[in-house]
C-alpha cells in the first residue's frame, strides 16, 4: 500500500525502495487506483525514498503522465536523488516532466 497525503486537491504519493521490472507493475496498479479514487486531483510523486530505479520505473512514470494528461490533470515529481536524476538526464526526460527539488515547492 503506497503512502499518500492530500493537500489543496493535490495528492502526494510516496514511492520507496526499488522501482524495477519486478515491482513496477504492482506499483503502477496502485498509482492508477489512487488516480481513479481522486478523479479531480493533481498528482505529485515524491521519489526521495527510491533507492533504485530502472527503465521499468521510467515507463511507469510516463504511463502515469499520459493518463493524467488525457484527463487534463497534472503530474509533478519531486525529491529526485542523484541516481534517479541521472537516469532522467541520460534519457533526456528532465524537460518532459515537471520536476521540483522539494515537496513544498511542488505543492506551492
Amino acid at each position: 500500500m503506497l503512502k499518500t497525503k492530500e493537500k489543496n486537491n493535490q495528492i502526494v504519493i510516496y514511492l520507496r525502495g526499488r522501482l524495477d521490472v519486478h515491482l513496477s507493475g504492482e506499483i503502477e496498479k496502485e498509482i492508477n487506483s489512487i488516480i481513479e479514487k481522486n478523479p479531480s486531483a493533481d498528482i505529485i510523486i515524491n521519489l526521495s525514498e527510491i533507492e533504485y530505479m530502472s527503465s521499468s520505473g521510467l515507463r511507469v512514470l510516463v504511463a502515469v503522465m499520459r493518463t493524467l494528461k488525457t484527463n487534463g490533470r497534472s503530474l509533478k515529481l519531486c525529491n529526485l536523488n542523484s541516481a534517479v536524476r541521472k537516469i532522467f538526464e541520460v534519457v533526456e526526460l528532465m524537460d518532459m516532466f515537471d520536476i521540483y527539488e522539494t515537496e513544498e515547492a511542488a505543492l506551492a
Partner: protein
Amino acid sequence: MAIQMIRETFGVDIQEIPRIKVFLEKNLVQWGVRENDLYDILLACDEAATNIVMHAYRHADEAKKNSDSIMLTVKKKRNVVEVILKDEGESFDPDSTPAPDMKLNLAGLRKGGFGVYLMKSLMNRIRYRCQDGRNITVMLKVLSS
C-alpha cells in the same frame, strides 16, 4: 595484472532480476568499483537481463523458460569491467531497437524503449552476437577512477 572473474547462472524469470543485481553489486563492491560506476553497471545489467526475460523469451513456453538459464560472467582487468550475458532465447539485437520517443510514449503509440538507450549511454561499449543458437551480449565499462 590478474583478471578477476565471476560467473553465475540465473533463471529466466522476472523474479531473478533483483537476484542478479544483488550478486553483481556484492562482487563489484569487493573489487573496489565505486558508486557512480557501480550504479551504471548494475543498471545496464538489469536492463540487459530484463530484455532477455521480456523479449528473448516472450514467445517461449514455460518448459523452455524453466529449462533455460541466463549465464552472467563478469570480468575486471585494470580499470575495465566486462559484463557478458548469454541466453538461448530468440535473438534480440539491441542495435535493432529505435531510440526512445517521448511523444510516441505520451501518445500511447509506444511503451518504453528506454532500456537499450540506457545500456548504450551508461556503458562504454555494447556488442551483441548470436552464435550456435546463443545470444551473447557483451558490455564494457571503463571505470572513472
